[in-house]
């Protein structure tokens, strides 16, 4: 079974997201911070990482550091960044494309 890791500092939101993923045939792991998430990724085979940045304004910094850390991995999981906040135009998704990550909006 595929493994999905949620990195979300908001425990209530992380639980909601975990619940929403119930119909998807995957095992869900949850970490509240990036450092612990990286240890999990190194220890377990993770297919997809859902990153929910604490602040939509600083999400690029968070995602950059995650991508940097993942570069050393032999098999990189797919990264999805969930932005909580208003849509601010295509620049965020284009930035994600450059890093090969998928940017989704939670409305």
């Amino acid at each position, binding site marked *: 079974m595929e493994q999905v890791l949620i990195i979300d500092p908001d425990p209530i939101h992380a639980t909601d997201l975990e619940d929403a993923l119930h119909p998807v045939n995957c095992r869900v792991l949850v970490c509240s911070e990036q450092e612990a998430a990286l240890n999990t990724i190194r220890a377990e085979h993770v297919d*997809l990482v*859902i990153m929910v940045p604490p602040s939509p304004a600083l999400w690029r910094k968070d995602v950059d550091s995650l991508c940097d850390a993942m570069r050393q991995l032999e098999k990189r999981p797919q990264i999805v960044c969930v932005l909580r906040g208003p849509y601010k135009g295509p620049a965020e998704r284009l930035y994600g494309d450059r890093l*090969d990550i998928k940017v989704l909006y939670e409305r």
Partner: protein
Amino acid sequence: MKGREELRPIAEEIDYLLAKRRQKAVERPRLALIHGHHRPETNCLHGETVEQAYLAYEAQEIPLRLSPTGLLIIDCLSRHRPTPLSATHIERILSSDPFYLRHGANALGANRAAVRPRRASIKVYMRRIRVQLGKALKEVGLDVRPEGILVSETTDSNVVVYGLKTNVEVRHRQY
């Protein structure tokens, strides 16, 4: 607090991305070879040219930037699939098979010099083909090593043999 319903579009996207990842793991890239100066009602007859080789994956086709010799070597490997060939064997085929001896004879002017690489240079071409395959694989976003497509194995007498482990499609055009 968000409900499950509100987060459903995100869950559906995750479901799709996981399925896409599974599909990528199973689906293999293919090679497409273009033969030029084809005569109607014939099939891969001598006189044709090997014009281009592409790495094809889903709807994408990435041209491999190969020299004429590289193209002939990849064509030779595809014709003899699944038999693996040594550099000596490839050298012999390229210098005796009418397709390669008369390569491009159908073309107007037909002044193409026959390509006859030596055994040692064939090994260099294998490396170059892999470099091009690697670039194309990266371009289509596949995490596949070129050595998994152009494979080399060692025989019991320590001779390295090469083979293509992928589907190859040959397309013809009349110019």
